[in-house]
């Protein structure tokens, strides 16, 4: 591309050079302004050498040039003797070329001059003053316009003496092979000059302003000469005149002005004095220092800086800011930091490895104890700088907080519990194991007289045992596929009635037992049978049409009746809990899966079942009657609600805070409640105090399933847990209202095995003695005493 651009430029150049050629003779051109043409040649050569593609254009260009050259030659040839003007001009030119620097008039380019002379690369316009003004064409600064160093020899004859051509009219050949004609020789020139009459003051120059030949006067020529000589142009100017002494040597007789001498001449300036005083003061005050070399100044500054005085001269103690926390001091070094510690402080190999394995930030100590035999062997501590740096960082960047370290014996936190031996009696050992059930024993109950134990298990049987001996006296299979979930004796000594629940059926039975006299048996049967009469007499409340009755009271069939099972009550869903009212006429059942009808109250004398709640918030877990007052407690998963049965209203909501209540029991005195939960907690509530727990006990590692108070006047309660243990607590409720109940754990009974993550499922206390019976998932019931 570079070549192309060169070509283009050259082409644009071409017309101009033509015009030049037209104007001036080729000869002068060759001498004065070779620039255009010759550079063209060079460029052509280059082109030819370099690139054949450019040949066409290049040859074109060269042809143009050849044409030009021919023109030149023609011009020379045609005019043997050039025309006046031309000749004169040529002479002028020659002169000029001889001593160019001298004559060159500033601002007038000789070349431009002759160009302007001949032709129209300027326009004449009128300027503001009405004078002529020459407006020149813009000179295009082409690529090769000022190419001065490509001066090819016009004559191509080479390095041979010119007198070889003496006999020829030409003196050699130009680059195009054209003859270069011999210039006019000295004689001819002389003749010519002689023939021409030179006007006065002729210079051969053209006035650039008028275009007329520029004639100079003698004075002007003299001026030029003086300038050339380096003299002062003005002849008359005297560069070294004599000095005229106006003020110094000549004393004036009279003053020039008669004004009196001003005060400022003889009074010192106040302003200056002010400024001086300013400086003086600054020096005195040390603001301006006399100059001293920097080293000296530095040394002095150093000495001066060390000011020593008593900073605490009049110290007065201040109360420390209460919010100020002084930085804790670093702990003093211990034995293990010694360079020569006792042997036992040295780490073993394992300890060392462990220490090295740890990340430096996790290490408890930043060093390993080490023993150096002598002081000279102790190396530098490599972490010294870093440690100090960290201390610095701690001092200014670590947030400080006051932490009160409890410097007390942890044992002082523990409550003083009375020794268990002082709280006797309570059950401690397993007295009897009741074996016989296949699968889990789900429920146990001791009869009100304290002689018989009833158990119900996964095998669907209810068994009655002699409590002390562990002998099974009676057994009945209630269901082949359902487990007996709960068994409970009717709490009155004048009868011997057992209630048991298997699936959706509740059975009421009179088991045969050694202590059961025929009369007692008869009384019991009468109690059970009384309701049938009531039912048949039709005094039962009419059931709304289309509504399923809450329960169906029926006889269980002859086979069971022969065994002593007298009544079957069928409810809507599986019954899990039975709770008798203290008088024995009512009992409540809870079937957690039954939605609305989960809690039912059955009246034995009327064979009637009521569903007291239209709606329950949450799933009912268990229910109980208040031991003294007509209150009824229902436990849902989270809360225990207390209802007044007479007023039919909600009295209280107890919130133990447990996630899932498993069971609860009311203290016989009626004011305290104990709740067990599946989240391993046992919660004691004082109903008068708050609906929040008074004490929370966590002794079990697994869920607690059952909790029971002793009913016979002993301050005991026990809980049963899935971890296979029972725990016996001493829980005394004082008669005085102001005193708090004392709760002391006294014994942990272990004996049941954990089967399928189930341990002890139920417990019951003996009505009088400090004995309790537990039902285990391992298929046994155990009597503890």
């Amino acid at each position: 591309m570079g070549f192309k651009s060169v070509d283009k430029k050259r082409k644009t150049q071409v017309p101009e050079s033509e015009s030049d050629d037209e104007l001036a003779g080729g000869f002068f051109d060759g001498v004065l302004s070779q620039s255009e043409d010759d550079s063209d040649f060079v460029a052509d050569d280059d082109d030819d050498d370099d690139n054949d593609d450019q040949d066409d254009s290049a040859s074109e260009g060269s042809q143009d040039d050849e044409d030009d050259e021919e023109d030149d030659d023609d011009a020379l040839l045609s005019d043997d003797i050039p025309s006046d003007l031309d000749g004169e001009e040529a002479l002028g030119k020659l002169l000029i070329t001889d001593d160019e620097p001298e004559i060159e008039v500033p601002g007038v380019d000789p070349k431009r001059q002759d160009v302007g002379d001949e032709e129209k690369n300027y326009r004449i316009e009128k300027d503001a003053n009405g004078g002529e003004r020459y407006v020149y064409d813009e000179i295009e600064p082409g690529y090769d316009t000022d190419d001065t160093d490509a001066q090819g020899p016009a004559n191509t004859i080479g390095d041979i003496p010119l007198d070889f051509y003496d006999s020829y009219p030409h003196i050699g050949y130009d680059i195009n092979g054209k003859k270069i004609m011999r210039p006019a020789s000295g004689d001819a020139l002389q003749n010519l000059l002689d023939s021409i009459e030179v006007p006065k003051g002729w210079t051969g120059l053209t006035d650039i302003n008028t275009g007329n030949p520029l004639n100079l006067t003698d004075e002007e020529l003299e001026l030029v000469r003086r300038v050339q000589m380096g003299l002062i142009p003005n002849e008359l100017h005297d560069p070294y005149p004599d000095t005229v002494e106006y003020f110094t040597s000549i004393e004036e007789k009279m003053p020039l002005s008669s004004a009196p001498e001003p005060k400022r001449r003889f009074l010192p300036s106040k302003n200056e004095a002010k400024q001086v005083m300013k400086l003086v003061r600054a020096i005195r005050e040390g603001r301006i220092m006399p100059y001293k070399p920097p080293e000296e100044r530095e040394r002095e500054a150093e000495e001066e800086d060390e000011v020593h005085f008593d900073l605490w001269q009049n110290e007065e103690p201040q109360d420390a800011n209460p919010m100020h926390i002084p930085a804790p001091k670093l702990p003093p070094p211990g034995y293990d930091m010694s360079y020569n510690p006792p042997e036992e402080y040295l780490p073993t190999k394992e300890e060392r490895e462990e220490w090295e394995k740890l990340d430096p930030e996790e290490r408890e100590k930043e060093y390993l104890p080490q023993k150096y035999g002598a002081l000279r062997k102790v190396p530098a501590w490599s972490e010294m700088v870093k440690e100090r740096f960290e201390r610095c960082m701690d001092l200014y960047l670590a947030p400080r907080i006051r932490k009160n370290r409890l410097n007390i014996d942890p044992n002082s936190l523990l409550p003083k519990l009375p020794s268990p031996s002082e709280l006797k009696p309570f059950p401690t050992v397993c007295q009897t194991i009741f074996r016989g059930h296949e699968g889990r024993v789900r429920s146990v109950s001791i009869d009100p007289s304290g002689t018989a134990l009833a158990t119900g298990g996964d095998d669907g049987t209810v068994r009655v045992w002699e409590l002390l001996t562990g002998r099974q006296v009676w057994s009945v299979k209630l269901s082949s596929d359902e487990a007996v979930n709960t068994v409970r004796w009717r709490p009155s000594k004048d009868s011997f009635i057992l209630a048991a629940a298997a699936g959706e059926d509740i059975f009421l039975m009179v088991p045969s037992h050694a202590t059961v006299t025929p009369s007692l048996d008869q009384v019991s049967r009468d109690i059970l049978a009384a309701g049938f009469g009531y039912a048949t007499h039709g005094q039962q409340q009419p059931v709304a049409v289309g509504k399923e009755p809450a329960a169906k009271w029926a006889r269980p069939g002859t086979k069971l009746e022969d065994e002593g099972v007298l009544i079957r009550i069928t409810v809507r869903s599986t019954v899990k809990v039975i709770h008798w009212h203290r008088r024995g006429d009512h009992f409540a059942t809870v079937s957690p899966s039954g939605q609305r009808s989960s809690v039912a109250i059955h009246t034995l004398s009327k064979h009637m079942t009521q569903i007291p709640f239209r709606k329950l918030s949450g799933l009912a877990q268990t229910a109980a009657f208040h031991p003294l007052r007509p209150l009824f407690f229902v436990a849902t998963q989270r809360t225990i609600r207390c209802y007044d049965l007479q007023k039919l209203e909600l009295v209280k909501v107890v919130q133990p805070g447990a996630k899932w209540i498993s069971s609860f029991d009311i203290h016989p005195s009626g004011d305290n409640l104990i709740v067990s939960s599946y989240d391993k907690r046992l919660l004691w509530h004082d109903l008068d105090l708050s609906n929040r727990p008074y004490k929370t006990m966590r002794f079990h590692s697994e869920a607690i399933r059952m909790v029971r108070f002793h009913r016979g006047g002993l301050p005991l309660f026990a809980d049963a847990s899935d971890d296979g243990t029972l725990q016996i607590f001493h829980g005394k409720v004082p008669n005085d209202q102001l005193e708090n109940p004392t709760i002391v754990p006294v014994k942990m009974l272990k004996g049941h095995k954990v089967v399928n993550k189930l341990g002890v499922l139920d417990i019951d206390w003996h009505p009088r003695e400090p004995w309790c019976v537990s039902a285990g998932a391992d298929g046994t019931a155990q009597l503890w005493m």
Partner: protein
Amino acid sequence: MAKIKRRGQAGQAKNYLTRTQAVKKLQLSLPDFRKLCIWKGIYPREPRNKKKVSKSATASTTFYYTKDIQYLLHEPLLQKFREQKVLEKKISRALGRGDVTDAARFERSAARPDKTGKPRYTLHHVIRERYPTFVDALRDLDDCLSMLFLFANLPSTSAVPAKMIARCERLCLEFEHYLIVSHGLRKSFLSIKGIYYQANIQGEDILWLVPYKFNQRIVGDVDFRIMGTFVEFYMTLLGFVNYRLYTSIGLKYPPKFDQLKDDQGAELGAFALEGVNIATDGAKAAAGDDAEHGPDPMLQAAVDKLVRQLKEEPGVESEVAVDAEEMPSDALDKFEPVAPGGDVLPQPSHSSSDPAELFAGMTFFLSRETPRQPLEFILRAFGCKRIGWDSVLGEGSFTTDESDPAITHQIVDRPVVQAAMSSEGDGEDNQTSQKVDLNQRYPGRVYVQPQWVWDCVNDDELKSSELYAPGAPLPPHLSPFVKTAHGQYDPTLPLEVQETEAETLDADLAEVDEAEGDEVENGMDVESGNDDSEEEAAAELSEEEEDEEDEEDEEEPATLQRQRELEAEIAGKAVASKTVDAKTKAKLEARKALEKKTREEAEDLERAKGMLSKKKRKLFEQMQYTNNKKSAEDMKLRSKRRKMEKELAKKA
């Protein structure tokens, strides 16, 4: 209706500022803020409830008290910082204009403490504010001294200018001089990190750490600008503290400092203390002694010796005796209960010897392998007046002649060279100025290892030098700063005193085991049976068991005994020695009883713990955790020691 309160308008939110907010409020750059905080002792706080405090959603980390920042607002230093900032701006602007001369002029007037160690401001007022009384300043001197002593031993770099180091060193040496004159040094401890010193000044205990004289390794991630800020403050502080200390004992501060001597490594000896008005003799003697000494040590030593022979030896004893009987001393009296029943009050430590007189009459010579600086300091601080050392250790010694007859003690820390070696050794030993035979011992002189000095100082008595003889294995060097709490392991007490009951029993049983192991040759099978039973018992005992199994346990030995008898019958041997059995049985029973007791206690504890509230139980468990950890550590130490003692006994 009450006005609705908005979040972040009152309460905790108003009391705290984050660091960014603080910097913005003070209109400072972060490095300037950091400096200000360091000097003024402002530190971040930990609010009780971070969430309430932070106004932004992101969790800020550092909070300052608003009051603290307000207090900083009135700090005169703030103005200096701003001026400096303006100056920097001017310089950068001049440079931007290309006006180098202007920039240079500004630069000249700029304070560059990081280069020159010379700031344009002073920290006097800050120190006075932070420490309203002198005792307050003493209380905070621990970090100051540790820091300055470290910097005095650092190599100078671009971050730590040499001037700063020199100044640190001077301040430290001046402080040491005060301790020497006032005999304030109490304890010292050679640790693996460096040498700890504890001094008591006006009732304040000051503990600081001096690194060993080695080139300190500087780890990459240490910002010396922060350290430099601290050092700047500490230097000012120690300067004032030194002034106060010096004037309090009637000395002129600063003491005369001899640059020439310092260049020759005289260190402590480069200072000459002067009294304020009258030259106090004691002070002059303390430091001036060696300074004046110089020219002819031999002559001086001879004179000293003569003088001692003439005067002191008969005189001192009688004087002391008179002192003790008649002169009312200003020493502390010991209060001893006359009648039983009163409470015991803590009494000030009643040291048997005055620290000023521990090394008073002695002349020490330090061999060239010993650390001169700490030894010189500690010996001087405890009353030694004449300390000589090899001239390679630097200028300022009492004598450089090892053969000086005045020397009573020589501190040596080199291994004992065998006789054959010593003859060759002479040739190698070209660093000492004097050619002394390596094994040569001057009679009448005590040779000890350096640890002797420290142990003497810490125990306040001169220890017997035999334990510390050159080449002898040293007794362990114990930290004097440990205050043993009750039940903690104490290496100074015999093991039997500290062991718990269970440990003693275990140890005894293990011994019996070993003893039986020795007897195995007699009745192989029988004894192995016995061993088994014990192992079983041990295994069972280690577990938590139930009562019934306990009973079985008790039965077990009986059945085993029978079985053993049967086996013996079959083998046709006599039943193994009954005496051993009885002994072990008794011990086993004792252990069993102990186990039972501990188990019952654990049960009780469990019962009581269940009755605690959750908060208290957590606290209790935490406390127990740390206690158990500590006791486990102690137990480990005890067991290690027992093992070692046993090995020693075996060897003996």
